[in-house]
């Protein structure tokens, strides 16, 4: 693991995050535009477009992993705890929804939503933990 300070690690994250998001935006809009040119897009093309759209999300996850390795130990602990909690919330939500779906109580959930549910729960928990542990800062 490279020895970088907290500030440097965050700078490296932000520097890489922006281009990845630009690629994601281009892939989503460009891919959608491309597929709309066909009445019925070929499966192979649809698959390639879908994978290209998903690749930057994998990039963001890798950046999050790298940041957690490079940041200071306290922030790493907070991030890992929030990621674990986010993962558990997502898993529990999926199981509850799955059982409800099994007995036709709720409609089938779009698998695509699992990612946003994880990121949302991870983000919220991380913000709450930062707020509660970050109270009482001295300038």
């Amino acid at each position, binding site marked *: 693991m490279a020895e970088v300070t907290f500030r440097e690690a965050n700078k490296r994250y932000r520097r890489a995050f922006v281009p990845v998001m630009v690629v994601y935006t281009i892939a989503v809009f460009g891919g959608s535009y491309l597929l709309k040119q066909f009445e019925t897009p070929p499966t192979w093309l649809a698959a390639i477009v879908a994978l290209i759209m998903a690749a930057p999300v994998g990039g963001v996850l890798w950046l999050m992993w790298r940041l957690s390795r490079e940041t*200071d130990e*306290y922030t790493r602990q907070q991030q890992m705890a929030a990621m674990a909690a986010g993962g558990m919330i997502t898993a529990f939500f999926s199981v509850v929804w799955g059982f409800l779906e099994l007995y036709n109580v709720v409609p089938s959930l779009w698998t695509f939503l699992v990612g946003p549910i994880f990121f949302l729960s991870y983000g919220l928990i991380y913000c709450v933990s930062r707020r509660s*542990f970050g109270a009482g800062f*001295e300038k």
Partner: protein
Amino acid sequence: MINTLRELRAERGWSQGDLADALGVSRQSINALETGKFDPSLPLAFRIARLFGKGIEDIFDDGLGHMKKAAE
């Protein structure tokens, strides 16, 4: 774990941000350390001790020091 980080920092007139920069960690880390919400790893404890020119045990106390002294 109890520590004297806040006192040592105050003696030098440093802010939490100054200490965080000197150690290469976040200000949240310093706050968590000072309030006893977070115990540092051994490498970080050494870095803190070196920065203040003290021994680790002069800064951090796990509350069992008195037991050691009693045994001696």
